[in-house]
């Protein structure tokens, strides 16, 4: 590959009329585009000198075909100069700060120095309009200045005092241009025009208009054979038409009034050609009434040239389809449908070492019959860059022609590195490199443990896959972007990949308390893990060998792991009973053996994953990935061993509990009524800094919140770990006790903006209540449970609360998206230099040492430079 040329810098400047004429290949004088035969008019807007878009024709300037000719500029000689809309503010400033007769800046050199600074110290500001007092006398020629009025979009006028009356005297673009010409170069420098040779102010008043090449404004041919011109062409047609008419009138010596009208019309067309969204100027419209997309509109905005086309690149070698889970895959892998694998290719250069293999691949052809078949190829590329398509008939002939130096574009096969991505790509773990596993079916398959970094679920999510095409790209993909290297999140320095949902439930059910498994049971659980040997049985009874549940889990742990921590189910008792904890929440691992405690979210879950975290730091990424693979497989077997389900009857409580719940709710309702009574009697003591009403509302919210929690406790007393929902809540797999409370006990207060629901007409929320009623029912307290069912008013209040949640999410996504875009834009150029400082790519120092201690947050232990606790535990083999 040839070494790419680097663009060193890009300079910006104004085009002078001379330059415009020099770069022009043709003067355009005709407004028409094509003649009746569909051939472009010479000197028309589609002149063949400007480049070609129709296949078959050749460019008259460079003699290249449509695909090669980049296009060439033409020009239009304007009958009279017109203002460039983008520069009206500059023109206004220049008119106001320079003399109307001599063109010098209206300040003495000393005054300029005061603002700009001395010659050695140019640290001051640029001159602005405010630095020059209105209507002063020119210090250079002594001429009295006049006030300059500017009217949007492009009208300038001088205010002349005649017989005590103020009269506005319009400045034509030609007048303005004449004044700009008079400004000497050295006076422009303090005004911010540093290089007058590349940007003279008079060039902002156009006398010649460049005509962009046709390649920039291609016409399209509709189905009915009609040509449809680009918006820019339409606008140029308008300009040329008016320009011609203007010239004719001028030559014929038309009255001043008509000339002025035409001049204004020409100005309007040139203005809208530059920018069709100028304030105070009606946008030019297409025949259909749609505003035209002119030059500014092409560049602006999200889908404009800059953000849409230049910053956002499109790529080949990518595919997209629905994702679905496969717990039997490794987290490192991605299941790729055969149809995708047969279409996406990797170019392999033929050498003497691989020629036989590649010939065979070419022979296999473009169709892979099943997933186990060896991979084939779609194209081979000859050294002269000609592509030969492999098809059923030519396989052997082409394969025999292959020689070193050729390239074979072979299909994907198991083990290839691909990038996998899910939008929105909010952080770097949204794109990770996986290994291909070709599978039947039509979806991408992934291990559910990698869902958290992608934030993916399987309710119809789609994901993208990209195939790196060069060795360099593949090397970076494996070394830097692979799943294995991205287990730790740079956000907080902990694992972001780990067990979710059923993984946590399963491993919890497996490791909770003590159970004994017979050999075949233990082997069933461990079948899909990578273990090679079973440990000695934990006990032998009546000649039958038994393994404990903790032994089974310990098998997948690294040998020298020592750690102690509290599981998610830990209640943070005042005095920890350690090994004797009745919830089995004290986890202690000694030399790779789980001695006590239950494995749950805290140990292996995504975002928490204590064990995963410790393994990464002590054994490395690769071992941790293996552990995650084993853990997911073991936990899925474990959850299948007992089975796990949840049904409507799991929310059933006994008669006593229902009685208690009713009692609690009744008392709460009475308590609320009592407080309302106190308030109505005027006896309520307000909290400091709050009104009486606010105090009452807060009290009511508190009482009702407490009542709901109480029902939850009552329900929780009845439902033990035997209940699937409780198990999920306790292990941290999904949901919380609150969800269970709402299902079995009472849904509780619905709120809008953190307050009880108060909206409604005529002093009440719904016509079912009395006016001014303040009771719990009238303001959105739901006494029933999801299982028990809601009454109509409750249902309505629930919908109100639910709607607020939906609106909230919709607003939040757009706001946080914009925040992130701004943050990225502000910080994207920062990097750590080789001396440890943080600098912008331009070399400015932002921090002398990254994060004040030079620690990489990714490698840090939840922010600490060193995981001292882990090291102490692993060496002393006891709790630190």
């Amino acid at each position, binding site marked *: 590959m040839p070494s790419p040329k680097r663009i060193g810098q*890009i300079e*910006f400047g104004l085009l002078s009329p001379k330059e415009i004429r020099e770069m022009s290949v043709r003067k355009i004088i005709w407004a028409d585009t094509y003649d009746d035969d569909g051939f472009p008019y010479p000197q028309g807007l589609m002149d063949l000198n400007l480049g070609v878009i129709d296949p078959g024709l050749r460019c008259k300037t460079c003699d290249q075909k449509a695909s090669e000719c980049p296009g060439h500029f033409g020009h239009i000689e304007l009958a009279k100069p017109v203002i460039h809309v983008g520069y009206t503010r500059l023109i206004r400033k220049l008119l106001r700060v320079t003399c109307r007769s001599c063109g010098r800046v209206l300040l003495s050199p000393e005054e300029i120095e005061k603002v700009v600074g001395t010659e050695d110290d140019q640290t001051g500001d640029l001159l602005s309009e405010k630095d020059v007092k209105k209507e002063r006398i020119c210090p250079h020629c002594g001429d009295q200045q006049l006030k300059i009025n500017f009217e949007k979009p492009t009208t300038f006028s001088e205010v002349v005092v005649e017989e005590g009356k103020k009269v506005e005297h319009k400045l034509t673009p030609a007048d303005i241009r004449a004044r700009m010409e008079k400004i000497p170069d050295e006076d422009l420098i303090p005004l911010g025009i540093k290089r007058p040779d590349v940007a003279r102010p008079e060039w902002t008043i156009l006398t010649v208009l460049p005509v962009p090449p046709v390649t920039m404004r291609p016409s399209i041919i509709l189905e009915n054979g009609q040509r449809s011109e680009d918006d820019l062409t339409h606008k140029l047609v308008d300009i040329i038409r008016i320009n011609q008419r203007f010239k004719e009138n001028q030559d014929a010596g038309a009255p001043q009034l008509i000339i002025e009208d035409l001049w204004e019309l020409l100005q309007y067309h040139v203005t809208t050609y530059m920018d069709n969204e100028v304030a105070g100027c009606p946008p030019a419209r297409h025949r259909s009434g749609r505003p035209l997309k002119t030059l500014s509109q092409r560049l602006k905005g999200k889908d404009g040239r800059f953000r849409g086309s230049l910053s956002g690149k499109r790529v080949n070698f990518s595919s997209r389809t629905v994702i679905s889970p496969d717990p039997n895959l490794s987290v490192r892998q991605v299941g790729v449908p055969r149809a995708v694998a047969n279409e996406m290719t990797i170019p392999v250069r033929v050498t003497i070492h691989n020629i036989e293999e590649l010939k065979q691949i070419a022979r296999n052809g473009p169709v892979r019959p099943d997933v186990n078949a060896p991979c084939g190829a779609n194209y081979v590329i000859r050294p002269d860059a000609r592509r030969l398509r492999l098809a059923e008939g030519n396989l052997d002939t082409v394969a025999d022609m292959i020689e070193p130096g050729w390239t074979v574009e072979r299909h994907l096969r198991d083990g290839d590195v691909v990038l996998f991505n899910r939008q929105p790509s909010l952080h770097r773990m949204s794109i990770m490199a996986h290994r291909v596993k070709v599978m039947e079916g039509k979806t991408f398959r992934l291990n559910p443990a990698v869902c958290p970094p992608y934030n993916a679920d399987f309710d119809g999510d789609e994901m993208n896959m990209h195939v790196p095409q060069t060795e360099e790209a593949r090397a970076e993909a494996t070394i830097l972007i692979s799943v294995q290297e991205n287990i730790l999140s740079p956000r907080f320095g902990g694992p972001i990949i780990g067990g979710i949902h059923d993984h946590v439930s399963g491993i919890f059910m497996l490791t909770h308390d003590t159970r004994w498994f017979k050999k075949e049971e233990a082997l069933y659980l461990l079948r899909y893990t990578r273990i090679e040997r079973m440990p000695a049985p934990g006990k032998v009874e009546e000649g039958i060998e038994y393994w404990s549940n903790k032994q089974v889990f310990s098998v997948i742990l690294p040998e020298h792991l020592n750690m102690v921590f509290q599981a998610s189910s830990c209640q943070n008792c005042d005095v920890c009973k350690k090994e004797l904890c009745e919830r089995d929440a004290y986890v202690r691992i000694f030399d790779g053996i789980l001695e006590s405690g239950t494995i749950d979210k805290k140990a292996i879950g995504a975002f928490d994953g204590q064990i995963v975290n410790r393994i990464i730091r002590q054994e490395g990424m690769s071992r941790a990935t293996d552990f995650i693979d084993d853990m997911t497989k073991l936990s899925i077997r474990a959850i299948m061993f007992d089975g796990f389900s949840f049904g409507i009857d799991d929310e059933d409580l006994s008669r006593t509990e229902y009685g208690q719940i009713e009692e609690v709710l009744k008392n709460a309702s009475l308590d609320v009524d009592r407080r309302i009574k106190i308030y109505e009697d005027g006896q309520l003591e307000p909290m400091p800094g709050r009104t009486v009403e606010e105090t009452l509302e807060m009290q009511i919210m508190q009482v009702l919140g407490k009542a709901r929690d109480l029902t939850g406790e009552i329900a929780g007393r009845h439902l033990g770990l035997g209940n699937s929902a409780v198990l999920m809540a306790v292990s941290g797999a999904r949901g919380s006790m609150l969800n269970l409370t709402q299902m079995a006990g009472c849904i509780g207060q619905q709120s809008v903006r953190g307050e009880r629901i108060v909206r409604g007409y005529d002093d009440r929320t719904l016509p079912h209540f009395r006016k001014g009623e303040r009771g719990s029912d009238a303001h959105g307290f739901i006494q029933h449970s999801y299982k028990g069912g809601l009454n109509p008013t409750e249902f309505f209040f629930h919908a109100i609360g639910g709607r607020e949640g939906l609106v909230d999410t919709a607003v*939040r996504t757009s706001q946080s998206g914009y925040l992130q875009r701004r943050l990225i834009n*502000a910080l994207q150029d920062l990097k750590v230099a080789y001396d440890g400082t943080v600098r912008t790519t331009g070399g400015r120092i932002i921090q002398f040492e990254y994060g004040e201690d030079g*620690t990489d947050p990714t490698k840090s232990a939840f922010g*600490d430079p060193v995981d001292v606790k882990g090291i102490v535990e692993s060496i002393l083999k006891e709790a630190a």
Partner: protein
Amino acid sequence: MTLPEKYEKKVEAADLPVKTKDQIRKFLSEKEITDTKFKQILDRVIKEYKSTRIEPCEAVGVIAAQSIGEPGTQMTMRTFHYAGVAEINVTLGLPRLIEIMDARKEPSTPTMTVFLEADYRNDRDRAREVSWQIEAAPLHEFGDITTDMENMHVVVHLNTKVCDKRKISPDEIMEVAPKKIKDRRHYRDFEHAIDEEKATLTFSPKDKESYQNLFQLAEHVRKVVVQGIDDILRVVVRKEGGEYILYTEGSNLKDVFDVAGVDTTRTRTNNISECANVLGIEAARNAIIFEAVSTLNEQGILVDVRHLMLVADMMCMEGEVKQIGRHGIAGEKESVLSRAAFEVTVNHLLDAAVANEVDELSGVTENVIVGQPIQLGTGDVKLIAVRQHDN
């Protein structure tokens, strides 16, 4: 937290950050350890410390931006929430984070946390005294105000008991009130008379004919702040961590610092630009970090401080607090293309042409635009190892 002397010396001598040394002391104190075990631990700690250094060329900016932006989707929008103090509303969640990054002149809910000096912080009454000096108290809290329509007067009868309780003399009030109406409320069309004996203050409008003026005057008299700091609408005294702390609604750091009994070393405001003006840019940088960390933590989101430090340093680099966005950092970048690709595309291009700007193509966006490798990470490495051939 003490180690045997021989270990202590070695820990102290090691090239480790203070935090890590403290952790070693904490985890090893009161433990039976042998010399070899201690050596093993210390060696492992030093080895791990070396391995957690940040690598050159790392695109730390992008990582920081992603780490702060990504959890934004998980934050609540609920603007008002009671943080710690039930009496005072504070903006929290995503709106607050946006507010910090926007470097607003005034946050939507300015508050202060006022710590007290040693002699004040343990006594509720003394803390209350300080709070009276801070909380803006309008005149009507100190006595009865009657509007005498017959004589066109507004008469204030000061309640000496209240004045005593509030530690302010009636004379002082009577002196301050008219002055403040003129200075702070910009209302001058009145005359006043003081009766020190009866502790009454009489106001009369200059225009004796207009009842409207009289009522206007009465309103001004009622609301004029005679004690405390005008911007601070409310003060709440709470006991936290064994001392009394004042929480305020409204913020005025400079004036609060002048109040006797205020611990100026710990007192803080959530108004970042005020921090910058009163205490300087370093304080503002710390305030940004503190505010952002507490906003994120309150939502239960774990984000490494280093990311927030980088954002704060970027915002404060020029010596004043700059916004993250087009009116701040992003709008003042060197590169024309980068600015054009962010917001207000056309204006940046037009201005660049007149100023004859040159884009050096050093940043990320510029190089993406022209299709070159960016100067970060693996794209920044210019050294290529030449393999030594043996033969």
